[in-house]
């Protein structure tokens, strides 16, 4: 608990449950020495210039709420809600402040407090039907997208846009409509065991995810093929499920725990070297299972230990291949490409060079540097739908930097970034192709050309 000399309370004392963040270990706040070196790494501060929208400012606000120096007013909550949770500040911080372990449990507390007061955002139609009941389930996403596929096939979507009929949709659905890429036909589901090509070097499981399997199943198939080409036997358990990030980040930590437990049951840890993830956002969440389980109350010790062990098994696909020592791909892909660092890869998982080194192995591919490559594109999970204004500002910022490179292909290892960048490019009518690193590597291993 805070030292009373530091606390400068002018407010009436409250019950502990009514103070969000009061159960966060206080040392985690003290880790911040207020040096300000994080500020210029923060996308929202770069846009607004307001220190309340910087990591240092947000930590100060959260600590002030915990110390009861201020109330969680709408203004204060607004600044905290504007945080993308991109963790860029953690990369910049010289003191090793775990910002994510402050803002995430703080937000969970705020959501809980609000639902106890009956004003939770979790109860609105969007959270209940779209975020919680549609997104975590790839099959439902696939069915839900069927009309969109048909409309795209018949070009009815273009007609709707010309007639501006999409403006009849609620704002969030309209934004989802705008994000929707040109959909590829859904791939047939993957066999549960895929053999290694050549000498077997490892045995891995593939985490297929929810939105990515529903919309980008071809990336999952490409990832499996790349792993096979590198001598990995690939197991794709059918019983696996969503990582739970959407639930956890909107304060529904119990539901997130259910997903984690289902994943625990799905993967047989003794029989595999690693569980491979190809979506940065899921990877960061899965690797965090061990921390998150400490923040959720009342989990049996045995499950805590098992989830901590599960968390150590997850590897991003680029990280894993780089450590394994990649088999050099031989097919030529003569493109000028640039690489965008997904926040949940570069900041949350500290994976920056590995995907670039893999891409540089591809004959004919020129990788040009992207200015501000580590600044968030504004996708940030469902942020795009909940904070549209800032998401658009950051999307435009990213677009300008991408266009300045003169690249034909933008490569990124996160489905959220892909959707956001693709949407920005379409709105600006720029014919660039957005790809996952594994898509391009797969083409090179299979000696095929990129169809843009």
């Amino acid at each position, binding site marked *: 608990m805070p*030292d009373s*000399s*530091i606390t*400068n309370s002018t407010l009436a004392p409250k019950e502990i449950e009514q103070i969000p963040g009061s159960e966060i270990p206080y*040392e985690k706040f*003290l*880790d911040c*020495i*207020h*040096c*300000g*070196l*994080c*500020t*210029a*790494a923060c996308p929202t*501060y770069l846009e607004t*210039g*307001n*220190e*309340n929208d*910087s990591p*240092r*400012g947000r930590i*100060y*606000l959260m600590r*002030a709420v915990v110390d009861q*120096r*201020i*109330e969680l*007013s709408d*203004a*204060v909550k607004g*600044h905290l809600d504007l945080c993308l949770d991109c963790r860029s500040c953690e990369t*910049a*911080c*010289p*003191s*090793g402040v775990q910002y994510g372990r402050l803002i995430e449990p703080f937000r969970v507390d705020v959501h809980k407090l609000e639902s106890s007061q009956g004003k939770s955002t979790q109860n609105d139609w969007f959270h209940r039907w779209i975020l919680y009941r549609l997104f975590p389930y790839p099959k439902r996403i696939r069915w839900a997208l069927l009309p969109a596929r048909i409309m795209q096939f018949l070009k009815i979507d273009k007609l709707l846009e010309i007639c501006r009929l999409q403006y009849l949709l609620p704002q969030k659905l309209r934004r989802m409509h705008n994000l929707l890429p040109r959909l590829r036909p859904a791939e047939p589901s993957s066999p549960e065991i895929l053999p290694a090509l050549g000498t077997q070097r490892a045995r891995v499981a593939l985490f297929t995810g929810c939105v990515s399997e529903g919309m980008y199943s071809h990336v999952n198939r490409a990832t499996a093929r790349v792993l096979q080409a590198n001598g990995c036997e690939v197991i794709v358990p059918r019983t696996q499920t969503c990582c739970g990030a959407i639930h956890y980040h909107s304060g529904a930590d119990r539901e997130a725990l259910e997903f984690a437990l289902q994943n625990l049951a799905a993967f047989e840890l003794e029989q595999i070297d690693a569980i491979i993830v190809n979506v940065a956002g899921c990877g960061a969440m899965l690797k965090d299972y061990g921390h998150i389980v400490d923040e959720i109350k009342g989990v049996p010790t045995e499950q805590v230990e098992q989830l901590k062990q599960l968390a150590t098994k997850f590897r991003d696909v680029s990280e894993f291949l780089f450590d394994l020592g990649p088999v050099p791909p031989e097919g030529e892909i003569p493109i000028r490409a640039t690489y965008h660092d997904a926040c949940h890869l570069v900041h949350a998982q500290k994976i920056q060079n590995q995907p670039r080194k893999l891409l540089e192995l591809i004959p004919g591919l020129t990788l040009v540097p992207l*200015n501000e490559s580590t600044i968030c594109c504004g996708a940030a999970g469902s942020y795009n739908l909940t904070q549209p204004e800032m998401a658009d500002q950051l999307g435009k910022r990213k677009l300008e930097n991408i266009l300045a490179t003169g690249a034909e292909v933008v490569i990124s290892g996160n489905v959220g970034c892909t959707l956001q960048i693709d949407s920005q490019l379409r709105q600006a009518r720029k014919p660039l192709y957005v790809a996952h690193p594994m898509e391009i590597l797969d083409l090179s291993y299979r000696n095929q050309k990129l169809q843009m």
Partner: protein
Amino acid sequence: MVEQTNQMMNQDPESLEELESGSASFSALVQQLTLIVGEAGILFDADELLVYECDGYIVDKTAPDIVVFPTTTAQISAIVKRCNQFNVPFLARGAGTSLSGGCLPIGGGVMIVLTKMKNILEINLRDRYAVVEPGMVNLHLTNALKGTGYHYAPDPSSQGACTIGGNIATNSGGPHTLKYGVTTNHLLGLEAVLPDGSIIELGGPTAEVPGYDLHGLYVGNEGTFGICTKAIVRLTRDPESHRTMLAIFQTIGEATRAISEIIAAGIIPSALEMMDQGIIQAVEEAFHFGFPLDAGAVLLIEVDGLEIALDEEVRQILEICNSCNVREIQRADTPEERLLIWKSRKQAFGAIGRLSPSYCTQDGVVPRTRLPEILEFIEETSKRYGLRIVNVFHAGDGNVHPILLFDERDKEQIQKVMEASEAILDKCLELGGSVTGEHGIGVEKINFMSRIFNQIDLATMETVRNIFNPRQICSRDKVLPPHQTDGSSKITQSHPTRHAPH
């Protein structure tokens, strides 16, 4: 000085108004300022002002009454004129990374935050200058120059966040100061809004400007001469090549002798940094770089320049290190290895967070040859107060940064840290040095000023300040000690927590 102060009595900062939230004059000023910067450019809700109550120096805290975010020089001039009209103090803030309380709004008033003025207005490679707005982040300028073969040379350790305007206010240095000089050597001219709201232009992009060198005078004013609104900075050609190495010594004495002899041999390394045993152990514990834990000191030496000359310089440095009983030298020949060595230096402070819940970094300077004496004294002080003190610093400049480890929740330790810090700074003065190498005076070191300078020196400085800022309406009670002993009674002194790294 005494006579002069008496004349100035009616112009003392005490005559400035203190705004009261909700009062008629407060509402009127908010309304006037909103007309200038718009509703999105002003904050006056107490919850949102809290984060502006301190900068990187968190011992003293006081919040402004109003924060504004101007976007043009004309807006700043208009804001300053309103502050004069309402007789309310004001000051500028960039990124708020000051380690000496440079952005502390003593007496409240209006804080003019320059983070929205961050554009590059011109880059002229042929004449080697750039014109930038004051809120431009130092590193963003160098990033924008990538690929041109030029860079902006002053590189404070906080360069990823701190602004050019703040660099000018504090005359910032950095690890490469030893060879390339500090901000004043790289500022060709500037535009500023004076404390009365008038706009002046000093210096310019050409080599020689007639008249007094006022922009030279302006650098390092710590915000007391008004607000810099535009800077014309020199661009420096990137060195053709570097050589970076780590020299590991058995004792601090041998390492400092090597430093003096390298400089005496006429070699000017682009960086010469030292880490002592305490910090080596901390870094090793955190990052496992493979430093020998029993080494007394490690020197990080970098030379740059024409490729053809570097090998000879390196040969001489190796010879000197050998003559000073160097234990081992690790060379960084590839860019990756160089990055790794610099990482060990720059992340050293991050490692300290793992050793101790709080720390306080001091900033003293001694003549290079007196380094062994000050380090010995720091060691004694550490024993005398029972505090762990580790050292990592810019050895080439004699700029020491003893880091005092403590727990901010222990009152007794806080007192010891304050006393030990003061003893160390006193010793720096005794050895012919100074109490700040690069963090500035701000409010933190203001009481040392009368120990460094005599009455006539201080009176002269005050006369100069009064030309620009006679009523101290702009950035009051900074740099020069106030005449009133209770002048800063509105500040909350809480505790000397860790200061950020340099």
